């Protein structure tokens, strides 16, 4: 065994980033490979709920207990990614009293602080709750920013020596004598940060061990080494509202069901969700009825949602897994628990373990377990510290408020920048340059954007998830070109233009599911600004050469048609 084993972790979601951080903190040499951006797969497509465990307290108590434990850990180590909003399980008259009592008892059995409050008390907390609700249970649910959390994990891993490769797709596993000994990778651009237009290439990466943390994509990696991993991907829709109709997580208190949660998230509220098994995690229908159901069902809890403005919808795929002998018919019956599949024990293939199932709130615990597993294999005696050491940005959250004055940022922009950056605020915002706001909806300043570009390369979608720029009401209508302008300080025009186009396409993708009312007006305004005012849709720089001489050259340039008529060039109508 080598003294410092090299472990390749495949998958840059919360699980993969959590594993990379844990292993590298224990002194292991780690390479993390992600086919898209960090969070590109399932992590970036979740509703942002930091579970208290309340949702699993009746049907899946093991998961519920893990949730409340990790909920407490994340509040501590990731304070700049978490907003402790609190949560309510709300009972409507038609919902079962028996279930309400089971929920309350279940929460208490699992150690989740839970209290019953009256309808009046609930409405004094959340005035937009329906008038006819009966009562509610309070639980410590919260909101968490998955992008910020994963980026912080990756940054911490990097600080501990890990190599992080995004836009790098694993195309094959290297297998020798029934053992996985590495991976073959296709880089979209060269190794390192992504830069548009930079030639990528193939790379063979040898590893002492491979961890497959690709969630819904786990089967695809397994196949490369001939092992069967039956992940059952299940899709769910999430619809984003333009404002926070609620400041508390609102759950419907009834057994499993679609459209039963509203999560306040940054400036928005996210409605969720559905649970439907799909064949392919990358190709599944995204349908109108799903969006309509979110609004039409959740308005029973929060009536104003019916007329409220939604800014986009997105779908995520849960990487559900159950041991083959269980055989659940309905995906909602599949456990949310996670499984560690050591392919040596399971399939006689050494050198690789897959981790499947689980959920975002328990990503750290999953990372810990698999890191323990890997360390044991290599005889490394190092304790897990990810539950105690704050993530970069969460180190000294208490002093944050002071930064606002220090950097002359106006509230609420300053407050929001500082909340996003956490204890990194000083490092990022301490600039002698003017620091104008680039994204007005989310209050993102130039310094933050430049900091994100430094970390993300020329990928504006990666800048977006780090800063939230272009994720507010206007969905980038007013700031996509500004982000391109910011990028151009570091990258050339061609690279910038490619990244800009990619951002425009990505922003359009989710808005399509919100196109009526105010958001359709917004979409038309964006289209007018980008196509009519900027000519981004028919940009001659992207197309054929123009014969400039065929166009009006201005008052001083000779006008051939005018010359023929023997009229002065500045004549126009009055010249005749």
């Amino acid at each position, binding site marked *: 065994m080598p003294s410092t084993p090299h472990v390749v972790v495949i998958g840059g979601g919360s699980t993969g980033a959590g594993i990379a951080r844990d292993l590298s903190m224990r002194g292991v040499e780690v390479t993390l490979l992600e086919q898209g951006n960090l969070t590109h797969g399932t992590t970036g497509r979740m509703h942002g709920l930091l579970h208290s465990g309340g949702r699993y307290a009746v049907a899946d108590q093991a998961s519920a207990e893990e949730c409340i434990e990790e909920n407490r850990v994340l509040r501590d180590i990731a304070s700049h990614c978490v907003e402790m909003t609190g949560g309510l399980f709300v009972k409507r008259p038609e919902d079962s009293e028996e279930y309400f009592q089971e929920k309350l008892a279940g929460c208490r059995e699992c150690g989740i602080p839970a209290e019953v409050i009256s309808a009046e008390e609930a409405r004094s907390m959340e005035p937009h709750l329906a008038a006819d609700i009966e009562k509610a249970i309070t639980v410590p649910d919260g909101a968490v920013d998955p992008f910020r959390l994963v980026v912080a994990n990756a940054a911490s891993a990097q600080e501990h020596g890990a190599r992080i490769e995004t836009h790098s797709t694993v195309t094959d596993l290297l297998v020798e004598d029934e053992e996985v000994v590495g991976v073959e990778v296709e880089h979209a651009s060269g190794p390192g940060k992504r830069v548009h237009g930079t030639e990528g290439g193939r790379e063979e990466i040898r590893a002492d061990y491979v961890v497959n943390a690709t969630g819904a994509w786990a089967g695809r990696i397994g196949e490369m080494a001939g092992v069967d991993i039956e992940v059952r991907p299940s899709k769910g829709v999430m619809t984003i509202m333009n404002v926070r109709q609620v400041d508390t997580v609102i759950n419907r208190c009834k057994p499993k069901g679609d459209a039963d949660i509203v999560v306040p998230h940054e400036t928005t509220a996210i409605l969720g969700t559905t649970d439907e098994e799909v064949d392919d995690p990358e190709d599944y229908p995204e349908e109108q009825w799903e969006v309509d159901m979110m609004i039409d069902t959740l308005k029973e809890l929060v009536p104003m949602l019916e007329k409220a403005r939604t800014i986009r919808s997105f779908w995520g795929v849960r990487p559900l897994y159950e041991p083959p002998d269980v055989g659940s018919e309905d995906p909602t019956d599949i456990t949310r628990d996670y499984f560690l599949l050591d392919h040596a024990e399971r399939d006689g293939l050494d050198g690789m373990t897959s981790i499947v199932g689980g959920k975002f709130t328990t990503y750290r615990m999953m990372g810990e377990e698999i890191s323990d597993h890997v360390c044991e294999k290599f005889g490394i005696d190092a304790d897990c510290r990810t539950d105690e050491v704050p993530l970069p940005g969460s180190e000294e959250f208490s002093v944050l408020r002071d930064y606002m004055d220090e950097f002359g940022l106006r509230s609420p922009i300053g407050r929001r920048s500082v909340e996003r950056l956490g204890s990194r605020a000083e490092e990022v915002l301490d600039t002698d340059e003017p620091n104008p*706001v680039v994204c007005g909806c989310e209050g993102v300043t130039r310094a933050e954007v430049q900091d994100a570009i430094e970390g993300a390369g020329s990928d504006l979608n990666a800048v977006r998830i780090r800063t939230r720029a272009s994720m507010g009401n206007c969905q980038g209508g007013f700031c996509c070109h500004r982000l391109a302008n910011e990028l151009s300080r570091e990258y050339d025009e061609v690279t910038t233009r490619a990244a800009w186009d990619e951002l425009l396409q990505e922003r359009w993708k989710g808005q399509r599911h919100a196109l009526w*009312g105010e958001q*359709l007006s917004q979409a038309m*305004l964006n*289209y007018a600004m980008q196509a009519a005012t900027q000519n981004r849709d028919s940009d001659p720089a992207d197309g054929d050469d123009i014969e*400039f001489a065929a166009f009006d050259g*201005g008052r001083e340039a000779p*006008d051939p048609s*005018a010359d023929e008529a023997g009229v002065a060039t500045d004549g126009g109508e009055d010249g005749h």
Partner: protein
Amino acid sequence: MAIESDVLVIGGGLAGLTSALAAARAGADTRLVSYKQSTLRNASGLIDVLGYTSDGEGPLADPYAAIPDLPEEHPYRTVGVDTVRTAMSAFDDAVPSYRGGHTDRNALVPTHGGTVKPTARYPDSAADGLASDDRDVALVGLESMTDFDARRAAAHLEAAGVPFDVRGITVRFPGDLRPDAKVTRYAKLLDADEEVSVRGRRRPARAALAERVNPELRGEPRVGFPAILGDDEATAVREELSERLGAAVFEVPMGPPSLPGLRLEDRLFAALSEAGASIETGNPVTEFDGEDRIEQVYIEKNGAKIPNSAEQYVLATGGLVGKGVESDREGVYEPIFDCHVAHPEDRYDWFDTDVFGDHEFAGFGVRTDEQLRPLDAGGTVEFENLRAAGSVLGGYDFAAEKSGSGVSIATGYDAGTNAASES
């Protein structure tokens, strides 16, 4: 008693203003009512007529030649190419500060996004920036203005193949403006030539700006700034900068809030007042009386409903952006008179999956007879004395075609003229 007029125009954007001006100049007693800020402040202030065909061919050097081949439902086909020309001449008359009327050909104007776009008329302030002019250009950006990066714009223009050398330079605007100062703040400062503090000395803003730019220039004969160069005193600001820089000075049109758009709006409101029309802004038309014919409309003002009656009405309330066309999850509608707006039943057929694809929603609006009178679903005239103009019309995609202003001017002119002649 209702407030009475011959022609009542609803909407204060380019179409409404053009329409009211045409009606008033034709001798009708004309009244214009508008509710919200007009969308001119969102637009670049350029007057596009037709830059690309409905199939995306272009940029077109001659917009008029392409009009007869547009699809039949296009508003230009409804009014005809001759009316487009006449309407553009009327615009030139009303707005002498615009250029481009000396030729049928489109100009290519640099955009703040960095490329060029075809347009038929441009404000005086943009005239020295045309891309078919082969004089070299220096573009000046302001350090804290995120909407325009001069270096990137210059490189982008070169990628578009412009026939001159172009270089971007970035300066810090003199004085202590906060980094998020609005464009109107820059403009007012230059209008008034306020004194600003530069290294402890007080200097007039225009001179101070020129002093920042001058050392960066390499003899370029023309210098472009983002469109912040004054509001009321724009010409004087430009002339003084031009003299101090020893170069022609032009503005690159910007997005909202657009000073060239606001200047144009001011000019058109002034022309309308001069023509003797009455103008009321800030209150919405909410209801009307009448079945085949509109008897009167009600303007909501401080909770009261004020009746306004006229012989002829022009609907110029805008499209999806201006809220002359609205939608909900079930469908698309025209909110004042409930004129029919054709649209696919399935909401997911309203758009294309590509950001700049062929979007059905871009063409949402009322369809009309040859006199611009809205038609119901069965093809019958909705109201015999109601005409529609501008973006409330359907059947064309102004953003892709670069035809927004031209359609507003042509249909506004046609609707206003015909309304006047029937009143």
